[in-house]
């Protein structure tokens, strides 16, 4: 169950990326899954090259994610910002296809692994996997850093301003293009980070990102938009739900429960269980 909590914080981290982009520019980022997968492979490559603590390698991976995000923004998002939402859905999906296509060509669909094992912590009769604890800790640290960034720094405040009311923000002299690009970059960086963390927990393939993308959607919808911390909490709840339910119900029922919950929450709580509606 605690395990579920820990894994859930990684779900939450992934969802934060999705939620941020959605909340700031009303774009549903369908490259999310591919970016998570890239995070997994990014960590794998760095770790194979430099065998140090993967949690340190997290930093360059996040940096790369940020840059990648800004590039993708310019290629696929910038031109379709004003247009109907279908366009950004499709453009991000197109990029997703391309990334997965290239990834499959390079890495095929074989499973990969990052072999790094932290010693666990044993309390009573339970052993908490070291990797899980570290991943959860990393997720929380990143989440809190993001929140601090959004609340305390100028750029962060600019992002919040644009998210609230783009026109007004522009009238105030905020270059919305720069802000949107950075916000998108951060969203991608979060996705990549969560992928990198997942790579230390479970074996993965180029297609694994898709599963986490779907979970991110469920979490984002549960939390509502524009509240990254809400996404983190919702992610933890989801992980908790999975952890609690697994011993009692066959694993094959879990997707059904998650998706039914997803549709029900979408229809019944358009604002999410905590959050507010995006523009």
């Amino acid at each position, binding site marked *: 169950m605690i395990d579920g909590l820990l894994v859930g914080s990684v779900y939450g981290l992934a969802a934060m990326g999705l939620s941020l982009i959605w909340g700031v520019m009303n774009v*549903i980022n369908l490259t999310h899954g591919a970016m998570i997968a890239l995070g997994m492979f990014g960590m794998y490559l760095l770790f194979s090259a430099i065998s140090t603590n993967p949690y340190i390698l997290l930093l360059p991976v996040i940096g790369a994610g940020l840059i990648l995000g800004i590039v993708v923004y310019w*290629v*696929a998002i910038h*031109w*379709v910002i004003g*247009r109907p*939402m*279908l*366009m950004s*859905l*499709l*453009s991000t*999906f*197109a*990029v*997703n*296809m*391309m990334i*997965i*296509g*290239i990834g*499959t*060509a390079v890495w095929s669909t074989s499973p990969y692994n990052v072999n790094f094992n932290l010693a666990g912590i044993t309390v009573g009769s339970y052993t908490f996997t070291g990797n899980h604890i570290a991943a959860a800790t990393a997720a929380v640290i990143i989440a809190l850093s993001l929140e601090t960034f959004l609340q305390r720094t100028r750029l962060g405040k600019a992002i919040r301003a644009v998210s609230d009311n783009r026109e007004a923000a522009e009238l105030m002299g905020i270059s919305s293009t720069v802000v949107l690009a950075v916000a998108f970059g951060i969203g991608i960086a979060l996705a990549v980070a969560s992928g990198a963390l997942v790579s230390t927990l479970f074996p993965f393939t180029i297609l694994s990102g898709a599963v986490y993308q*779907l979970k991110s*959607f469920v979490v984002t*919808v549960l939390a509502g938009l524009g509240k990254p911390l809400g996404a983190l909490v919702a992610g933890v709840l989801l992980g908790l739900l999975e952890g609690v339910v697994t011993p009692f119900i*066959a694993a*094959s*029922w879990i*997707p*059904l429960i998650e*998706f*039914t919950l*997803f*549709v029900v929450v*979408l*229809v019944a709580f*358009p604002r999410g269980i905590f959050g507010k509606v995006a523009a």
Partner: protein
Amino acid sequence: MILRRPSFWLILIVSASFIYLPLRGQNVPLREDLILVAVAIILASNLNLMIGYTGYVNFGHIVFYGLGGYIGLYLTTVRGWNLVLAALTAGVAVSFLALLFGLGILRLRGAYFALATIGVLQAVQAFVMNFDPWGRSTGMYLSFTSYQPWGGATRALWIDYYLIIGIMALSLILSLGIKISKFGLGLFAIRENEDAAAVLGVNTTLFKAIIYSVSAFLPAVAGALMFFKNGMIDPFVAFEFMLSLEGIVMLMLGGQGSVTGAALGAGMYEWLRSFLLTSPKLSDFQLVIAGGLLLVVVLFAPGGLIGWVYRLVPRSRGVIE
């Protein structure tokens, strides 16, 4: 009157050629190619009713096809029903389910609706994977005896092919008929501005529910027919998310909102796909090329091929539907 539209006769001519061409010399490979194009056209043109006409993006469209396949196969294999009856029942059942789901999710707008359709697709797939009578993750197989009433497997497959072409013709005629009708005008008004349409007197809730349900019918029937032909079904091949997305790509390519556009887009995409699959170098990059193509279309030609034609020749708007 629909009979006065050139598009109507074009549909009949194209359908006739689909039937005639493979029939010459019993050309099975050609038939197999054409059947894929026909299914693509069926899926794209029915999806067009939601996306192109009403402006509601259905990302989970393939769920109708898959469910139709399951119901059809179950009724023919397990219950020994006649194929035509089973296919029609599948169509009606799936339309009815669509109506029920629709009542819930059609309240949502834009991206929320799109996400909900993904949720429905995944939920149905997850459900079927746990559903015993339908074989859970293994799926179901058709026994060869089911082909007997049709005079054996070979003959059955030909008849099945004709039925699919019939459904293709029906899909296109249905699209055309709706587009030139008052109902269609209401749908397009909803697409342009749903709230304004309501204020103008369009019963948006009813119209949306109807079109969602209608857009499910023929794909479900086609699913029943196709999986009968394939002889087997499982939750992965029935509810493949990629197929749903390919439908959207086809519409974007050809031009959403246009009957000809949907058909052309489907045709072009199938051609592209078969070309990529057979070319040894490019088959790995199938996804990359398709993605690149989609990106180019979205960024530079969101009206698709037909949209481009409309801009080139403004008079064609009235003629090519």
